[in-house]
């Protein structure tokens, strides 16, 4: 698409083909900042490219910021958890705002993030950092004492998460002290959280000039397995409270622009508990689902709200109206093999015969033996559905958990 020189020039940090395609079809100038393995591909397809290996921040970090500044880039957009602090560091230079780096660090560390949220008056569960297995045993005991459990009562579980990993990577649920022994030492330190019985959901909020431009609620059918957008009417009824929570978050983290992706629990009494927040596009292809449901490209939306030259009117015109403008409900299901030994991929007939079924991105198994899942791990691929009834879709997604895709 023809680029408009009066609009912003953005740097995309990290390699995402869908993001590149979106930028290519948008009127903003862009450059992809990615490791050198992307270079040949970018050259072949005329994709503006700058080589950078995102390792730990070091004393060369200024170099990339200076290079981008010389190129006239206005802002850097992180596409992955690992590039969030890079974007903070780079934007501190590009936008001449040193605070942005501190903000990014806050958004990268789950323990710091929770403390900041708590300070901002947001409800969080009980949490603590663990440096070894003893810490975990102590926390599990204390949480269950607090809940007035007697010896022999089944424990309430606790959750363990890596400090700085995206989504479900490294996420474990612990119920008994024996399970603690299965945690490898190299996973420490971790963040421990009490379990909240309730409904977990995620939000994608595009923020421009400190205000919410678009707020999507993604409903998890089962955490780590399935998600759909927009949320069902039962969850959407909390939209006003959710909006208020997001506004608190914007204030607590002092966010002026960008895309945030927080997770919450809503308990049976309607109370919202903050889980965590990420300053990057969500996983599980929620952006693709949004495009399927609403027709707007969420990457372009992100470029728009990051662009310091975007006007309020422009932003307003870009986004549809939440829920009512959706053409239907789009969901996806992450497939994990259920058997220990698998030989091939076979989409269940009932799945692909369902009118909501759209497509899948599963590939044939490379190994016959399925590695036992300890943490939540990564799914083997997604299956996409689209239809016009949220309850049919929800039940359909739930039902997929009982089917074998690998046999």
């Amino acid at each position: 698409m023809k680029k408009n020189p009066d609009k912003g020039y953005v740097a995309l940090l990290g390699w995402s083909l869908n993001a590149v395609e979106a930028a290519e079809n948008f009127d903003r100038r862009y450059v992809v900042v990615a490791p050198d393995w992307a270079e040949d591909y970018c050259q072949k397809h005329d994709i503006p490219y700058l080589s950078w290996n995102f390792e730990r921040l070091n004393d060369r970090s200024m170099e990339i910021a200076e290079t981008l500044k010389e190129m006239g880039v206005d802002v850097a957009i992180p596409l992955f958890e690992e590039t969030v602090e890079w974007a903070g560091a780079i934007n501190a230079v590009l936008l001449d705002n040193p605070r942005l780096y501190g903000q990014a660090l806050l958004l990268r560390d789950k323990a710091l993030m929770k403390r900041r949220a708590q300070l901002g008056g947001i409800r969080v569960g009980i949490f603590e950092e663990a440096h070894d297995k003893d810490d975990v045993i102590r926390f599990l005991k204390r949480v269950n004492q607090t809940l007035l459990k007697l010896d022999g009562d089944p424990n309430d579980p606790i959750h363990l998460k890596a400090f700085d990993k995206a989504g479900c990577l490294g996420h474990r649920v612990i119920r008994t002290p024996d399970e603690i022994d299965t945690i490898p030492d190299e996973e420490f330190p971790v963040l421990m959280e009490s379990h909240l019985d309730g409904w977990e959901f995620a939000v994608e909020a595009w923020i421009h000039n400190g205000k919410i431009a678009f707020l999507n609620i993604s409903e998890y059918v089962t955490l780590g397995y399935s998600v759909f957008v927009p949320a069902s009417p039962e969850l959407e009824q909390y939209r006003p409270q959710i909006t208020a929570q997001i506004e608190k978050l914007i204030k607590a983290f002092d966010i002026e622009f960008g895309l945030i992706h927080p997770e919450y629990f809503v308990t049976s009494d309607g109370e919202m508990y903050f889980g965590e927040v990420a300053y990057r596009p969500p996983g599980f292809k929620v952006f693709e689902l949004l495009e399927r449901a609403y027709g707007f490209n969420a990457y372009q939306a992100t470029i728009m709200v990051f662009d310091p030259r975007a006007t309020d009117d422009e932003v307003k015109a870009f986004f549809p109206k939440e829920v009512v403008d959706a053409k239907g409900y789009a969901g996806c299901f992450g497939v994990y093999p259920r058997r220990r030994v698998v030989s091939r991929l076979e989409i269940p007939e009932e799945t692909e015969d369902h009118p909501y079924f759209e497509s899948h991105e599963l590939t044939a198994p490379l190994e016959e033996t399925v590695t036992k899942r300890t943490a939540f791990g990564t799914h083997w691929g997604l299956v996409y559905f689209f239809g016009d009834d949220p309850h049919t879709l929800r039940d359909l997604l739930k039902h997929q958990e009982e089917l074998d895709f690998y046999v």
Partner: protein
Amino acid sequence: MTTHHDDRTPDAGRLNDLLAKLDEATAILADARDFAKPGKVRRVFDTARRVMLLEGGCAAIEQRARALEEAGVFIGSDWAHPQILIPSLTPHSLKSSDADTVVLEALSELRLLAVAHGTYEHSLISAEQAHHYLTQVLAINLELLFTAPSEAERETQGRLALMTRRLFTHLAEGIGYEHVIDQLIDEIWRILQQRPIQTDPVKRMVTQIAICRANPEIDLGTSGQGADRLVSSLFGPTQACREDPGVAIYAERLQAMDAGALQYEATGFARAMHDTGLVSPYHPVLLRHLLDHGDHLLAEALGLSSTGRDCLLCYRQLVQALIEEGVHPDTAQAVYGLALTLERGILYQPPVAPALWRQIGLPLTPWSQERLRLAYGDAVSPRARLLEGVLCMLGLPLGVGQGNNPTCQSARALSMWAYNDPDYLLQMVAWAARDDEIIMHFEGQPISSMASLSGVATTLPMDLDPVSLLVVPHLDRIYAEMGRRCIGREGDPHRWVNPEFHGWWAGRGFRINVDVETGQLEALEDFLRHFYASYHPYYNGNQPLIHPQPAGIAVTDSAARFIGWHAITLLRVTLDPQDVMRAYFFNPNNDSGQDWGDGIKVSTAGNGERFGEASLPFEQFASRLYIFHYDPLERGELADITQEELDRVIGYIHRSWGADRLPANGLQAHPGCS
């Protein structure tokens, strides 16, 4: 949110829903930029697959063929160039366990059907070409048209196997059954002219035709006439088994025959066998019966010439034993192998007859027996099966095929020994089958096939003739080990491996026209002049090639693109019936009739080839050659071939596998005088 779906809409309704989705997915794909297309093609594949599973789905895809192709479903794959597609590759893609491969192949077929029908004018392929291509595809995949999915297919493909059947019914209706059968018959004859040892695939196809002709629901029109010889040669070559009565009844009928009737039967079988290279299961019944009826009838039933008959009379007892042990209705091809072995006169080489006696009594190791049973079943003893294989390999040394395995070197060696050194081949078979070990020497060091860990093939090949089945795994490991012992030496390891592996007659002199380090062409003119000087009768003092020589070929596809390096045997260089100098060679690949692109089509019949030989005009052959051996003591002057001829050969190279191997200085203009 306007449309409403009912979970139980009938087929037509579901088809319409799916087609709407397909059209939407196609439009998204069409709008995507090239680099983003791979991400968008998934929805098209998934939806197209479900469409093709429904009644009328294939027709609907055919109507959308142009839109699908223009949206980019074929971009980046061979299917984007329909003019180079090869029908013989379709069975692999259509039976793939990878759904996308099957769907792509199916979409491509339906696109070509639209082209053949004239509803889609394609810039790269004409309606006639598309029609021709599809008839070949149908012929090769005939079983998809007439048989239900086998267990194996169901296991690997699930419902996809039903999709390919719907596809083929639609294709056959679009093209016409009559074209399919005639094409298939031509194809069978083309393969049979190469006289392969393994005839099972051909026999299956002939059986398909027989079934098809017997089915009153299939209107073949006037086609299928040429199938008579094929069908009858298998199921009823003579008067007494014309109606395919079964071997037991046939054996009874033989009891009642007088000499005249037996003579009639014998001639009938012999003619059918030598016409087609196929042997009917009735033929062994007659042969065994004739063991008690004198040599004349036996020679007649084998269709022997005077050479063969002499050989039979000299070695009467051996032949009797070979028939008793190795010739059964389940090993019918042994008859043909025996007949040709006698015709070759190799029994007159002193070690061959005693080696065959050893073969008859050879005890097989449990491992060898197990391998033969796994591949061929239990109908006859493993020893009889192996004996059939031995007779066929001795009779048809150029009928050896490597199957679907990367073991061209081993197949070539077996063929070369059967052709040139038959008692050595028999020794190899004995070691492999009786001892589970072969020891060969490399530069004085023994190499045992037991001690060498791995060969070129990563899994044990199964789709081979009985001899190859047992011997190739050993040879393959030894060959790989010889290669390993050359690691670190400068240049191509074949220089040392080929003569040690194949035999003393493989020339120790070695030339290669590719720099192993860089892959660039090297000293091309010298290479060619030297090759002409060694092999071309006009330049080597009119010396016919004496021993078969290993050579290396750069194989190219029908678009002249480089595919890989391949081992062949150079057998003869001589003038063909049109007075063109031709190179005749053996290609261990299962079907030598290949199109190597840029006008180079390997011929297998009609240009003076013997059974199993492939041939090319000398220039064209030279243009695909990259390795040859010569006798260093005989090396003469480089051939003084004309620059014109040299340029023609080099032109072929530069337009094909050499295109991206030009050394840097070859691209520069001649340096001026400064």
